[in-house]
């Protein structure tokens, strides 16, 4: 029998990330993101990162540190109003920013996870954010063709994992985390607690273990 061990340290997990990677990070505002994994990335020499996330935290706080550290090459997300550093960096030509309507962003990440390369959505038809995208009519309404959003690495925040990597979440800290867990080549989950296999209710597991490569235990309060 071969032992199946997904748990590792934050350092071991982050050592798997490469400069230039596309990294998805779960969370909404400064809530529900994988804090210790993000800390470790900000303390690393990783650079030229494409960060795929709802927002970029606040100036110098949470995901905002990636930008202050100069680790960002590009951002893909939908709401950077909470962190004016982003507009400043973009206007200065320091980073590329791709805005996607939040629902299309969420669905695009799911699409990557479930092998859908592209789908149609009504959000943004005719607006600046649909510029250059194909459109088509279905049942008399116009829709925009949107692409799946893939990543090399997903850093997700969950509440509990079993040792095999099944995940459950906590309240609105669920947000994009389960979607990102499906959409990356390497998925690392940061959790508050690791429980024995069989302890999580099979009906309530949100992310089945086949989507999860590594689990790290959050230790800071």
């Amino acid at each position, binding site marked *: 029998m071969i032992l199946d061990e997904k748990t590792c340290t934050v350092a071991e997990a982050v050592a798997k990330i490469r400069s230039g990677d596309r990294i998805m990070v779960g969370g909404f505002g400064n809530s529900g993101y994988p804090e210790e994994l993000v800390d470790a990335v900000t303390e690393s020499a990783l650079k030229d990162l494409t960060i795929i996330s709802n927002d970029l935290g606040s100036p110098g706080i949470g995901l905002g540190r990636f930008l202050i550290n100069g680790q960002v090459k590009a951002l893909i997300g939908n709401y950077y109003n909470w962190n004016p550093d982003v507009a400043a960096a973009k206007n200065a030509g320091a980073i590329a920013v791709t805005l996607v309507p*939040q*629902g299309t962003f969420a669905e695009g990440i799911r699409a990557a996870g479930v092998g859908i390369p592209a789908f149609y959505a*009504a959000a943004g038809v005719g607006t600046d954010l649909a510029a250059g995208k194909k459109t088509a009519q279905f049942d008399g309404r116009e829709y925009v063709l949107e692409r799946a959003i893939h990543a090399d690495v997903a850093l997700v925040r969950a509440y509990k994992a079993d040792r095999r990597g099944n995940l459950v979440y906590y309240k*609105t800290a669920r947000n994009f985390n389960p979607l990102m867990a499906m959409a990356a080549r390497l998925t690392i989950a940061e959790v508050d607690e690791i429980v024995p296999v069989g302890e999580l209710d099979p009906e309530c597991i949100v992310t089945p273990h086949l989507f999860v490569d590594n689990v790290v235990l959050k230790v800071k309060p």
Partner: protein
Amino acid sequence: MTDLVPNEQVKTRIARRIAHEFMSQRRRMFINLGVGTPTLVANYIRDEIIFLQAENGMLGVGSRATGDQVDPLLINAGREPVTETPGCCYFDSATSFGMIRGGHIDATVIGAFEVDETGNIANWIIPNGRQLGVGGAMDLVAGARQVVVAMPHTSSNGKPKLVRTCSLPVTGYHEADLVVTELGVFRFRDQRMVLTEIAPEIDVAGLKTVTEADFEVDPGLRPMPV
């Protein structure tokens, strides 16, 4: 803003009127409230069959959390701590926007920079500004069954926000169904803007001087409850 309505009353008047709009329908409703004035609408809803959805993954959002209630991992889409209500549930962002995009949300209440006379809404960006974000605005105006705009009648420097044609980048075309300002209630019918209620502080002639958009006046024009 105009001087007609005291500043501190503008938001509450708008929010109360919108809450009344929903409650008067006397049916089960699922509603998404945007950041700012729209969030205040929750304070005036007294109905157990109106359910609030937050696009960050919750149905059955309760009141704003205070003191010991605050849980940093339980927030609304404006990053404010909120409470649970009985029967609430959590889900991921794809499911959340599935509710919105799939037509399961009866109404969204949003703020706006401009609404034009065909119902176009501009509320996501002021180009070359310090802000860069769309959030769920485009998904919400395209997906919610009813789009309600809550905004002061004029901007802070007195410019009309109900305009002929949006000058700012548009969030959605012909998506506005109802606009509530402190001075009146406007409904869109076949892409025409119709005034249905007017505030006591002003008359139609006066309202036209602070409104750039052409609007029709409903034959049954009524006083706006304040």
